[in-house]
């Protein structure tokens, strides 16, 4: 299956009932897939008039208790930031896919990881967090959609799945779960008419009185620390005896895996940590690993964004470097390996 289709099928099997979106490369094939697939299973696909409309339609359907998603890329995701802040403020679950592309501005449709800050540090206004997941294979794209919808519902929070054009176009075999029947927990808070609950359900993020707004912020803060405690996920690769640890997610992590193998073959002890949850960032795992390795190299398709979180996690216990290509450029195995060798001969090897 192609990455774009895998996300679509993953969403269908995760019980997504509604998709609202707007065309943009490199995620348009996902919308084509769902335009065909969702009606087949009695669900709805709609092309909105813009990304601003899409995200607010998502808010509506989510407020009515449904599993709902949207997807976009760069400029479209930027347009959704207001809506995402409102969704977070109103504690509404939904899934947003961002097929990142080169930027800033219109940029290009080539793969990029430049939206890391936007996704993990806010993006919209106000104090809030998205849960951010970054798969690195087509199989994981399928599987992560189920996880994304589950997390969204469990924490009543928007979840973003980040990938890029390479993963969108990539073909890999996938195993699909036959389990179609998804058990979705009741949502007594939803605006579904008054049959299910007593009194009035209000879906809202407007608190005019600062004390009341602060109370909501306290609730959000507690929720975020709960998420931070429970949901950090990463994968380790060849960490045993590693002096240099590469940290990379998504497409960059596929390149780094090859770098680790090549470096090991040349006798350089390199390993990798691949964050799968970008928020919450796997700080605990990286912090512990920092006790036994010599240095970290954060390999990203941006000017250096995740490296800040790696540094915070490492907390001064070891040096943290960054290697990046940007604007739609993808690092090559050779270039990253060169960088590794430079670091190794510069001290990490002694």
């Amino acid at each position, binding site marked *: 299956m192609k990455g774009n289709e895998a996300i679509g099928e993953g969403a269908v099997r995760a019980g997504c009932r509604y998709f609202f979106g707007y*065309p943009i490369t490199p995620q*348009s094939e996902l*919308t*084509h897939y769902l*335009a065909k697939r969702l*009606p087949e299973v009695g669900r709805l696909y709609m*092309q909105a008039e*813009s990304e601003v409309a899409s995200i607010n339609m998502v808010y509506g359907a989510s407020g009515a208790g449904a599993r709902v998603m949207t997807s976009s890329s760069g*400029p479209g995701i930027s347009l959704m930031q207001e809506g995402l802040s409102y969704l977070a403020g109103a504690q509404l679950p939904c899934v947003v896919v961002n097929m990142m592309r080169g930027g800033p501005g*219109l940029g290009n449709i080539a793969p990029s990881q430049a939206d890391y800050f936007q996704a993990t540090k806010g993006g919209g206004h106000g104090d809030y967090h998205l849960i951010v997941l970054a798969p690195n294979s087509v199989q994981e794209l399928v599987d992560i959609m189920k996880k994304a919808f589950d997390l969204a519902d469990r924490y009543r929070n928007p979840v973003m799945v980040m990938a890029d054009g390479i993963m969108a176009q990539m073909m890999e075999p996938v195993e699909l779960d036959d389990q179609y029947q998804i058990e979705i927990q009741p949502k007594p808070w939803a605006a579904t008419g008054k049959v299910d609950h007593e009194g009035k359900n209000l879906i809202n993020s407007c608190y005019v009185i600062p004390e009341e707004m602060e109370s909501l912020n306290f609730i959000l803060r507690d929720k975020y620390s709960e998420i931070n405690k429970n949901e950090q996920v990463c994968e380790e690769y060849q960490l045993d005896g590693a002096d240099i640890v590469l940290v990379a997610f998504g497409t960059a992590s596929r390149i780094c895996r090859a770098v680790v193998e090549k470096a090991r073959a040349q006798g350089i002890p390199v390993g990798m940590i691949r964050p799968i949850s970008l928020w919450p960032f796997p700080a605990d795992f990286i912090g512990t690993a920092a006790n036994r390795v010599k240095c970290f190299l954060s390999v990203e398709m941006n000017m250096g964004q995740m490296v800040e979180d790696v540094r915070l996690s490492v907390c001064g216990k070891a040096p943290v470097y960054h290697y990046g290509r940007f604007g739609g450029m993808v690092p090559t195995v050779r270039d990253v390996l060169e960088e590794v060798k430079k670091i190794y001969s510069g001290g990490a090897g002694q």
Partner: protein
Amino acid sequence: MQGKADKYLLKERLPHIWCPGCGNGIVLSAMVRAFDKLGCDQDSTVIVSGIGCSSRAAGYLDFNTLHTTHGRALAFATGIKLARPELMIFVLMGDGDSTAIGGNHLIHAARRNIDLNIIIFNNHIYGMTGGQCSPMTPQEHLATTAPYRNFDRPFDIAGLVQAAGATYVARSTTYHAALLTKLIKAGAEHKGFSVIEAISACPVSHGRRNKLGGGYEMLMWQKENAVPVEKARTMTPEEIKGKFIIGELHKSEAPEFTDMYGQLIEKAQREHGGE
């Protein structure tokens, strides 16, 4: 054409990126002819484009240009016009660009009657992103996002902008290229918000999927279904059904925004004085 092309087109940018049979090149050449007839001066003209295949036209024109965001070229153009009211501004947009994501900007710019010259390349589809439905895709047509056929009703761009306050509204097609040239010129000469809808063809992303033929057949479709505005006046609604009207559809006089703002400044200074 040679002299006009030399003056207004950036030869080094050619050949263009448009697919075989695409109508955008015809709209571009109608624009070049209109610029020539208007005696357009590169020192006092600015071209603003949105995002889409059609907006690429700006890239081939030898004017100062602004490439803007998808759908919002009119907001950028409004900024230029207010900063430099003496400039002649052309705004190039696709049908999705202008009526979907940009629909709000379109009606508000029309309401202000600001002196901008809009050319909407209406190919009835999202060309650049691969054949998704636009708000101009006819009902019952197939699109990559309408595999079960589109049931949404399309906009009537001309009716929409006229109702919103545009003071010059016209429509032509890439088949009726001479008329298109004439209307682009007349729109530019009109003071106020002018909209020229240029019906164009996208054989690759619209025609093929809907078995409408190639570039030639789609041009013939335009020829056969366009009704000149003078003739339409003599026809019954039944006779016009399924066809579309071309020509000058609306022209009226109304105060123009930058003029009104000039008057506002005079008034403020008269009443509340100086620096």
